[in-house]
């Protein structure tokens, strides 16, 4: 019994990491129609940003802030400098996939060039595990759970209660109507890439905190579960990404604890295929395949 509840506990930590990453991926896709294959590298940038801060003698909170800001800037630059041109010209999906995959390679190799290809780690204090209800969590995991929940809450607040959030939702639904209503579509899309870059980078910091060590593929190795969660929920919807993340996070951790850790990715893909067989547009069933900005 304790193995199951422990696994569910770890699964919830995984789920919050996946939820942050998948929400960011999904929102970027919904406003611009670009499936960002360099999304994982935004996580990696966040982790290395925190690493640099730590090496400069700053604490982990400051490191997370620096990581988040770095990811935001890179997310914005990715769209502003490269992808915007493709989106404006109405490039087909295959081109934006190729371009973002190319950006991913460039970023990974650049990070390797600067930091070396050997693994590094964030210094995380006090890994003592404690029982909270039925679950066994370390202090670090608790910080990730609470911090992640706060970030998701903030994201929901922005989307549902602010003009910026309403503009994001309007653009995701019908960008032409948004333009006809005076919404600054281009600026809103750029700000969305900035916000989601920061969100992904913070997920990267949390991911690096939960791993004993990490390297330049930290984020790209996380891409598969991110895609799976975003697609299962119905791509383009934050609600869907969170539900998808819960399913993928908990099921992969539980299956990993009974089978082998190596089965986690297989399990994620299996869930993805089964869900799509039953609901081809994902659980929350969005029809629209992205917007042109």
């Amino acid at each position: 019994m304790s193995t199951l509840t422990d696994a569910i506990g770890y699964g919830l930590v995984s789920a919050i990491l996946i939820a942050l990453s998948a929400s960011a991926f999904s929102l970027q896709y919904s406003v611009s129609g670009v499936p960002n294959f360099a999304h994982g590298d935004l996580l990696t940038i966040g982790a290395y940003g925190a690493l640099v801060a730590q090496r400069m003698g700053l604490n982990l909170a400051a490191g997370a802030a620096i990581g988040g800001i770095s990811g935001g800037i890179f997310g914005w630059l990715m769209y502003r400098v490269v992808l915007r041109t493709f989106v404006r010209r109405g490039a087909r999906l295959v081109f934006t996939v190729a371009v973002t995959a190319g950006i991913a390679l460039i970023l990974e190799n650049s990070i390797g060039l600067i930091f070396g290809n050997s693994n590094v780690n964030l210094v995380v204090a006090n890994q003592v595990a404690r029982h909270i209800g039925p679950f066994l969590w370390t202090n670090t995991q608790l910080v990730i759970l609470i911090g992640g929940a706060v970030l998701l809450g903030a994201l929901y607040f922005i989307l549902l209660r602010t003009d910026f959030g309403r503009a994001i939702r309007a653009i995701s639904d019908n960008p032409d109507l948004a333009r006809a209503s005076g919404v600054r579509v281009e600026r809103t899309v750029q700000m969305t890439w900035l916000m989601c870059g920061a969100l992904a980078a913070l997920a990267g910091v949390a991911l690096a905190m939960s791993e004993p060590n990490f390297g330049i593929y930290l984020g790209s190795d996380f891409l598969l579960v991110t895609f799976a969660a975003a697609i299962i929920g119905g791509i383009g919807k934050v609600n869907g990404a969170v539900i998808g993340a819960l399913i993928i996070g908990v099921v992969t951790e539980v299956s990993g604890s009974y089978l082998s850790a190596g089965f986690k990715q297989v399990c994620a893909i299996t869930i993805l295929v089964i869900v799509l067989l039953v609901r081809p547009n994902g659980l929350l069933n969005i029809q629209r395949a992205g917007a042109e900005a």
Partner: protein
Amino acid sequence: MSETMKAKTNGDVGAPVFVVDGLRRHFGGVPAVDGVSLSLRSGEVLGLIGPNGSGKSTAISIISGFIKADEGSVVLDGRDITNRRSDQVARSGLVRTFQIPRVWGELTALEHLLISGVAVAEESLRTALIRRRHLRELERATARRAAEVLDYLNLGSLADTRAGSLSGGQKRLLEFGRLMMLKPKVILLDEPFAGVNPTMVQQLQKVIDQLRSEGVAILLVEHNLQALTESVDRVAVLALGRLIAEGDIETVRQIPEVVTAYLGERKRK
């Protein structure tokens, strides 16, 4: 400016709020809009009629910034807005509807109006996170106005309903609400009465009358001639991208070119 336009505007008092001059757009060598000139004064309603493919919708799309013009100019209240981005055109006070009513299906009726309100001019990550006091006041004022507009359109009880589940007529009313929130000087209506039941047509006409009484100039593209007769001051007739006639509806009806190009076609139906 075309000869027909000159004849009309010379006799009018007050400067036009909206002037389109020599608008031209070709698609692969084929002229879709070929030297169209129009002008509107505050509170005036101009009907734009013409057979399918005559360039009415293309003209609206060019004027509203969705398609770039090859030549010509669009001037709103003395400001040249030719080939501006569509969102800039909307914020400058020239707004449009679409042939098929468009709504954001996932957003509530109230949210539609809030987006179109003043606050939308301020949307950014910075203002979303740091909600300054004047912004909050602006939001409150926008919310009040949105509630008033919904009540005026008899949509008050549907404020929190997802727009995707509204009826066709209600969606059309919501579009008008969206326009009203933008405090427009000029409105371009692309076949607003198409597929709308007679009661709703009356309600839409009431809204149009209200807008014109507030000084809004309206360009109304329509196939429904009966509705046009009751709503417009003048009509302009477009055929093959060119303006072939302009004047009051009875005069225009008599012009043989118009009968051939448009009215004749309607009569045969």
